[in-house]
């Protein structure tokens, strides 16, 4: 079976891009991840993950319009590719399988 390598942070970013759908560009993704996943995200980590996944083919991007608030620089919008969807599904599948394979007893904690 073909495997789709996907890191934990990458997965979160990829999912977030999906959530934002047509509005997924750097700052928006950063805000969304910070809000939903309750974690600090540096521009460096985010951009690095985005560019990496674009290279892997999970994401594609288009250049948006420039605006003054961004110092005249354009936005870059990301969307998930079919490949990216496969990767997400595989990741989710593996997790579900694992969840189901955990015996009930393992979670049977006694709270003293």
């Amino acid at each position: 079976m073909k495997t789709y390598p996907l890191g934990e942070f990458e997965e979160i970013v990829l999912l977030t891009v999906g959530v934002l759908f047509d509005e997924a560009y750097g700052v928006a993704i950063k805000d969304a991840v910070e809000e939903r996943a309750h974690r600090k995200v540096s521009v460096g980590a985010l951009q690095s993950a985005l560019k990496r996944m674009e290279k892997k083919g999970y994401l594609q991007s288009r250049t948006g319009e420039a605006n003054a608030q961004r110092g005249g620089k354009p936005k870059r919008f990301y969307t998930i590719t079919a490949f990216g969807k496969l990767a997400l599904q595989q990741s989710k599948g593996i997790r579900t399988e694992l969840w189901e394979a955990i015996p009930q007893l393992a979670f049977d904690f006694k709270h003293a």
Partner: protein
Amino acid sequence: MIKRLADRLFRWFCHPDYYPDIRGDLEELYQRNLEEGRQLEQWRYLLQVLGLLRPNLIRSFPQPTLIHPAMFRHYFHISTRNLLRQKLFTTINILGLAIGLSSFLLINEYIRFEESYDSFFKNADQIYRMSTVQVVNGEVGEKDAMIYQPAPQALKDELPEIENATVTYKFDELVLRQGTSIIQEKHVVSADSIFLDIFNYKILQGSPEEMLTEPNAIVLTESKAKFYFGDQDPLGKTIQILGSFNRPFKVTGVIQGIPENTHYKFDILISDGSIKNRRDYNSWNYNNYYGFVKLNKQATVSSLNDKLEAFAKKYTDENTKERFTLYPIQDIHLKSDYTFESEISGSEKAVSFLRAIALFILLIAWVNYINLSTARAVNRAKEVGLRKVVGAYKLQLIGQFLLEALLINLLAALMALLVSELSLPYFNQLVGKQVMLHVWNYLPFLLSLLTFFLIGTFVSGFYPALVLSGFKPVAVLKGKFRNSRSGAMLRKGLVVVQFAASIILIANTFTVFRQVQFMQGKDLGITTDYVVGFGIPNVEKDQQEAHNNKVKSFADALRTHTAIETVGGTSNLPGGGGADISSTTNIIRMVGLTDLTDGTTYVQSNDEYFLDAVSLQLLAGRNFDRNRTADTMVVMVNQALLRRFNIHDVESVLHEQIQFGEDDSNGKFEIIGVVKDFNRTSLKSSVEPTLYFPDYTPNNMVLKLNPEHYQEGLAYLQETWAKFFPDAPLDYSFLDDRFAALYAQDQRFGEIFGTFSGLAIFIAILGLFGLSSFMAVQRTAEVGVRKVLGATVSSIIGLFYKDFLMLLGIAGLVSIPATYYGMNFWLSTYAYRIAFPWLLVAVALMIVVVFALLTVGYQIYKVAILDPAKTLRHE
């Protein structure tokens, strides 16, 4: 500001494809945060930018093709080829650099050694020596390294800052007997158990707490234990100490050998309890001991000054001029200016002079490389031009020429290692110390070698590489290339530096030798030729009477021989060290004639024959006379003492009385004679104001021998000695040798200076040889044309000389003031010094001029005698 900087940084490293959108994101975040009124947003921005430094976000930097293996091989190949082709150039550079580097490194190790004194003790920075100084009118006068025996312990009891204190006495010399052999020991000191706690020498045998507590205990160093007892266990064995002790001492411990780099050296320790009956023990009148204290970690000496002053007043008296000082032991060897040091100190000035020499030599060698490579740039110009045409980066060319410099410096470094190893025994001999055994396995040396090899590569290689790589290919390949004017100026400047350094070194060497010569040849006020001095054994107090008679008959026996002209006695042999004489800081006056006067007064005792034995002139009055029973409260003085009282008429003080202290009932000594000033010790110190008391059984004898039969006299002395003192070794020396030994350090300094100055000028001349050879060859065609037009060989040489003479002139102008300043500084440490030797400086200048002109002349002559028909054939 910070944001702009961060932006520039980001633009520089970011991948251009990613730049616009990421930059936009950054800007958007920044503006938003700014609106929210966040502080330090610029810094946060910078942090974000730094966070973007990730491998997949940065642009691709052009790989420096410089390190491509094939190119590297190629450079290596070309470099070796060039070095092999230019044999003269290569040899001069490697030889010069190797000699320069090894001189520099050897001197460097010596300096490191000198600076390492006493730093190997645990917490050495907390150990201080307690010493005595006189403060008169707020100014520090006499400084005496020694201290009263009870002072260190008292100080420890008074000041909580003092963790530990010890006091130790250094014996001049003791005679020991073990079995049947009698041995003279010159390095014996007393010590208590704290001593070995402060100076944490490794204890090999015995208990550190107990081995020095009992009286009559003796602790040996490892080598002494071996010497006395061979392979036997020394513990519990006894050694007899003769002389005033005359009792057995039990060996209670063995410690490691004492290294060379400590100022307080000893071979044998005897327990503090053994010397309790000394007159100066537990007394606040005689400062004959060395005291050491260890401060606790938080204490600083400067904060203790007031307490030390209060302490001195409390323990001596309220009006005392004495102060106690705490002197860091690590500074003693090089920086101490105290008298009565336990050994002749090193000289900080000598060390800084040496450092300067070392730097000069290395500089001269580096300059050689710079000069020769830039001068030869013409030869490489076409190569550089072509390389650039086929696409070489400037950086690559710099790399290539740096590699060439590296290669030469590497060869030089290897050769320097060899040269250092081979010359090390001579170097150790030259400096008079075992600085290292080998260089090749001495890590600090190898590290310095590596460091200075790399620095040398860069310093010497960088400028030539910059010049060579900077050629414009179009100009070069058209053949319009000329050596640049600024390059020639720089070379001339560097040659001036070399000449100036050489002149300074040679002139300084001459000055040092002249001063030593002056001190050795100066009229001391006494005659020391064919005068022999030696010590008489000490005995215990109850045998003193019999001993005195024995010494008297010994002297009488010596007088019977015709080769012995005079037998005199004295407490202090002339030519001793600064600490060899007793002194007092008690106030002194001439009763009814002068006020009480401060200052150190030196005290010597002689018998009536002493003046005659050393031909010391009596200026007024009479000599001692042992037959006059009234001659007990009499004294002779020297002129230096009278000068202190501002008295110049020597006759006027006869029969006046000298009295110590403020108490009118103190003893009064009648002045019966005034002797001429004579130098008792090194001419570094002026003549000491001295009182001479009569003593008819002194500790030392001086024999004036008949110059023609002195050997018979010596033989008779040995024979007679063996008869009278069979138990004691005879240790005699000629007084002029004793004086010469005082200048051994200065002599040595001169020799070191001389050796390395010689090397420095050798390297400089070597460089000049190469440079002038190259310049002469370059101008072959010019010389040919001149000859065709009628110039003679001498006029051509004169033409070239004009340039060099100007350089030499400038070098002279620079170096003479430098020498004047440096040498006056050095000479100022001597009480008796030569005037600045202008003539010798002129000679030094001449030497450099002559060597330089000979070198240049030889090279030009070789070109000038060529047949112009041949040299111009290709033009």
